[in-house]
């Protein structure tokens, strides 16, 4: 039986520098992730319509809730537009999270993932590069939505720092959700299905939540769900940071949800990536 070690010296001229073995050094993993983040952002820059469309829907929601439904919704202790915007921020990044899945599914469909997997690069890089690029995209999108909010009359009731911390929570939440849809995207494997499969997961999370209306207007059975699900919890945390009230508890609970989401879906996504 020939073994791997016997012959390598004989064709040294044809063998490239000794590989680092199965495990890629940590700095390589970081460099590869940065490279793929760069590639994904390059994609975004060449397809700016992706960002435009990512913001059109939430802008319509802002206008609709601010000027159409808003008058009929009464919220305790603040104006409706101030109540609404934290919900809009979370809604925007929640629906935006499916972009992660769609992007990965597209890469799988056109063979790019196979190419990446045939290269001596860190295995984590494809997923990290994708989720990091989506985080960068969300920074842009959330900033844009904040501007829209100010234009329709939103004002923070705490201070600028707390407001920025609120946007920070929004971005962390978007990053956590990216891992859910990275998994979904790789399981379904094509872009259209990824898009279609994501909506039924997202719609109940976003609408059966405290994003647009106070929970006490919902029937009791729905309240039980709405009160504890991650979108409500995170919206409450962002709201506390923007509008005042106790912040430590809600922010802690939101971070806990994010940790749980990442702890469950990041390993699932990584495992799925190895399988495809």
């Amino acid at each position: 039986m020939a073994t791997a070690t016997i012959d390598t010296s004989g064709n040294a001229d044809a063998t490239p520098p000794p590989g680092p073995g199965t495990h890629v050094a940590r700095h390589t993993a970081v460099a590869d992730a940065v490279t793929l983040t760069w590639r994904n952002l390059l994609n975004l820059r060449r397809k700016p319509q992706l960002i435009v469309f990512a913001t059109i829907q939430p802008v319509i929601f802002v206008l609709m809730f601010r000027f159409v439904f808003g008058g009929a919704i009464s919220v305790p202790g603040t104006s409706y537009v101030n109540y609404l915007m934290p919900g809009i921020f979370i809604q925007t990044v929640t629906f935006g999270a499916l972009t992660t899945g769609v992007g990965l599914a597209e890469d799988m469909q056109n063979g790019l993932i196979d190419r990446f997997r045939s290269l001596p690069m860190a295995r984590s890089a494809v997923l990290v590069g994708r989720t990091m690029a989506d985080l960068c995209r969300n920074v842009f999108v959330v900033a844009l939505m904040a501007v829209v909010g100010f234009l329709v009359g939103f004002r923070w009731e705490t201070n600028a720092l707390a407001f920025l911390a609120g946007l920070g929570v929004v971005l962390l939440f978007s990053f956590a959700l990216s891992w859910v849809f990275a998994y979904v995207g790789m399981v379904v494997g094509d872009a259209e299905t990824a898009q279609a499969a994501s909506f039924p997961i997202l719609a109940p999370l976003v609408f059966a939540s405290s994003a647009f209306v106070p929970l006490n207007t919902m029937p009791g059975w729905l309240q039980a769900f709405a009160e504890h699900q991650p979108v409500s919890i995170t919206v409450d945390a962002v709201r506390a940071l923007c509008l005042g009230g106790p912040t430590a508890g809600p922010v802690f609970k939101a971070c806990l949800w994010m940790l749980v989401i990442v702890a469950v879906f990041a390993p699932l996504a990584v495992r799925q990536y190895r399988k495809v």
Partner: protein
Amino acid sequence: MTEPAIVADGIGKRFGDVEALCNVSFDVPHGTVLGLLGPNGAGKTTAVRVLTTLLPSDSGSARVLGLDVATDRQAVRASIGLAGQYAAVDEVVTARENLQLVGRLTHMGKADIAARAVELLDQFNLADAADRQVKTFSGGMRRRLDLAAALVHRPPVLFLDEPTTGLDPKGRGDLWLTIEQLVEDGTTLLLTTQYLEEADRLADRIVVIDHGTVIAEGTSAELKGRLGSTVLEFGFADRDHAGRAAGVLESLGSPTLDGTLLRITVDDGGRSMLAAVRALDEAGVEPTTAALREPTLDDVFLTLTGHPAEMTADAESDADTADRAPAEVGATPDRGAA
């Protein structure tokens, strides 16, 4: 003597009920070209995926440059280039950026990456389109870019999975020239194809695979030699002449009539041709065309498998697609002239 550059040693792989590969063994010596020939669904892509570390095999083992593809994956990946059936390039970024991406992911130096990209763009006749988005490229240009991307890190071993499927004849011819150039420069190449003409043209040795099993192996000439015969082919002005000629030539073998075309399979081509011409002359039957030809790989495939190469494309469950994106099912084998 060192081990061949690529060694497949009894590889087996199942997808559910489909046995995609069954005890497949072959090797590819350094600097040579192996053509893995078979119809759609024969297991070619699965074999390539195992050899390029993308898919673990269920049984058997495989080595590339002496490195085990299952246990030494990263080292194998550093030594191989893979270009697939689908041009795996990023549509939205430019050709140059695609090459730079691969350079960065294979950890080449910055200056080297830039220079290598220019070199490859020149070599693959893409210099003029270097800074255009790939989505504006023709099918042939994409394939060339895909191949270039597989070569960025100068891999000594190259895997091409149906590199010309879906290309027009000119694109195919261009790509063949490029591949021949690479092989001249010493690259070891494993090429899968369902085009008999392609294997004939590019490969030093051919492994014929069908339903996941190797059914024949040898040089193109050896495979043709297994028919042990040459084909005499005469054309006639009408069926009447052809029928009379069939009677005249009966002594040489068993003529088969195909309209006005008469074929006889014989063992000694030259001598039989002379005898046939003499006999036809004496009988006063004048052919309009006369040819002495070697059996084509098409003839070989028919003899080996009992079905023509293109028959199984749609009719049978496609083991190659079992582990892949659904898009592959739609790949149409517009067969080259064989």
